[in-house]
């Protein structure tokens, strides 16, 4: 009896979720993204360096470090 309602709510939730994320993308992310694109090259797309190896930078050497998700 509740299955069609659940299905409808799931679909409705997905549509609302996607709409909200689109709004966030265009309104909240856009200014940061434009600034970020102008002043950084995080993906190393602009020019080919002689090596794309960089130093390993993760620090995860103690139990406290390992308990973190970042």
């Amino acid at each position, binding site marked *: 009896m509740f299955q069609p309602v659940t299905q409808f709510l799931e679909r409705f939730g997905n549509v609302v979720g*996607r709409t909200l*994320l689109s709004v966030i993308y265009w309104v909240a992310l856009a200014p940061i993204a434009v600034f970020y694109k102008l002043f950084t090259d995080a993906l190393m797309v602009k020019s080919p360096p002689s090596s794309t*190896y960089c130093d*390993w930078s993760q620090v995860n050497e103690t139990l406290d470090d390992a308990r973190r998700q970042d």
Partner: protein
Amino acid sequence: MYILGLSFYYHDGSAAIIKDGVVLAAGEEERFSRRKHDPGFPGKAIDFCLKTAGITIDQVDYVVFYEKPFVKFERLLLTAFSTFPRSLKVFREAMLAWMQKKLWVRSLILKNLGIPKSKLLFADHHMSHASAAFFCSPFDEAAVLTLDGAGEWTTSTLGHGKDTKIDLLKEMRFPHSVGLLYSSFTAYCGFEVNEGEYKLMGMAPYGEPKYIDRIKKMIRINDDGSLWQDMKYFAYHWSATNSYTPAFEEVMGRPGRDPALEDKSLDPFYCDVAMSIQRVTEEIVMRMAQNAVNVTGCKRLCMAGGVALNSVANAKIINETDVEELYVHPAAGDDGGAVGAAMWAYNHLLGKPRAPALDHAYLGSEYSHAEIEEFLSEHDIAFEKYDTDEEFFDVVTEDLIAGKVGGWFRGRFEWGPRALGSRSIIADARSTEMKEIVNAKIKFREAFRPFAPSVLHERAGEYFEMPNDPSGEHWPARFMLYVVPVREEKRDAIPAITHVDGSGRLQTVMKDSNPDYHRMIELFGEKTGVPVVLNTSFNLKGEPIVETPAQAFNTFSRSEMDVLYLQNYVVRKEAKKIIHDTPFMLRHEGDRVAEMVS
């Protein structure tokens, strides 16, 4: 000390348990859930690991997840910024997945396992790969290479392992990735990403490396093997559906192959593309391997990450670089991250001593004779039972000689993607028609895909041109991770496993680690003069490899296999029927592009 390693929410969710540094059990969730490449929380695999170890979750000292979720989330956000405004769709899809599931990994694990926060640890994705490779290897000291599509930010690392420590020295970062480069060509040739890479590798020998120059217009391979991709040709970092752009197709000269064709048209152009990207991949991997030797001064190399499953490149590393000994983890992909994360915590983080090398992949579940007999009797399935192994092997080898194809179910199932003589379909490698028979009637898969040979380790050199490993150990061959030439004079003797270019992806069978399979092949050799059998995984296309006797029986019944060997029980094809209460599911095998990078 017990440590449980987990990898999930990307590809092949898995669990592994180690005790004092020894891997007791490991398995992919797909084997238990029956959903191919099941990425979900590996609850059934965890239950299996704990049951095998004979403990409860309360006795586990640490649970280690194989990557750092927030670092990956950061990468997704910064990539969306960098590719604004094209990244809308992938941002939306990725954020939905992350907000619904992936951001809550910690809560999910704590809730499902009921462990305190202090017991839950997070390793780095590539450190998990590096640990799976180095800490499972027999080497006290070695260079370490990891290569895959993408971890958090990292797509490849170069490191140095010594005793209980791994020092990762360098990393290559998203979106420059040898794994994603190969996957882009997988998609271009009409196969699913994160699955069709095997098909591309199998298709390559039908072509010529004619388009290397075109590929090199889109990438730059540095002397140290590091890779730079001109991202105007690639789309996987901003598109939810495409790996490459129209500019890529312009450079290659033809549009991408229609995925709907599957194996129906083996267009020579795409075969040439497959061979070209294979050669480029080999060049990258060999330069990376040579650089690893130069930087670390070690001629022993350990490798893991999905690209380490490229068995052609693995053999070339030994033959064409200064690497003398190579160890590749049997589950080199993300599934292996479960073992790696646990080993990392035990050896590297806690500084505990190394255990003996992982010299086999038989870490899965097994079923006793009593359990098998109970299953057969309960379902009224006619069977023959052999009291001694020798009698049983005699029957098996006579069947193979008579041209029968058999499902071989014996011992603990294998860790990783390869069937290594526990859950295998076996046949006579001497038969010229056998490849077509097994591809078309039994596996229902692409006609061009080759089959692997299982050969006695001590006689491999008679049939195959083994790489120059001075130790003679050939670790990758134990896990079916070498493609080597079949000796020219032997190609007519084993046509079923000799690929179109004269190569074979061999598995060397060790008496110590799989004595039953070894003895069966030995007996086959005594009777025929050829100690080699055709070995392919015991599943149908789109189905995970079988885990239980019931699944083995159903897969046997749904295919045209002639005979089923369940331990020492033999079931003939006249007994075929479907056990309806055993789940059977076929699904598409690959991932969408959005899933590939997030």
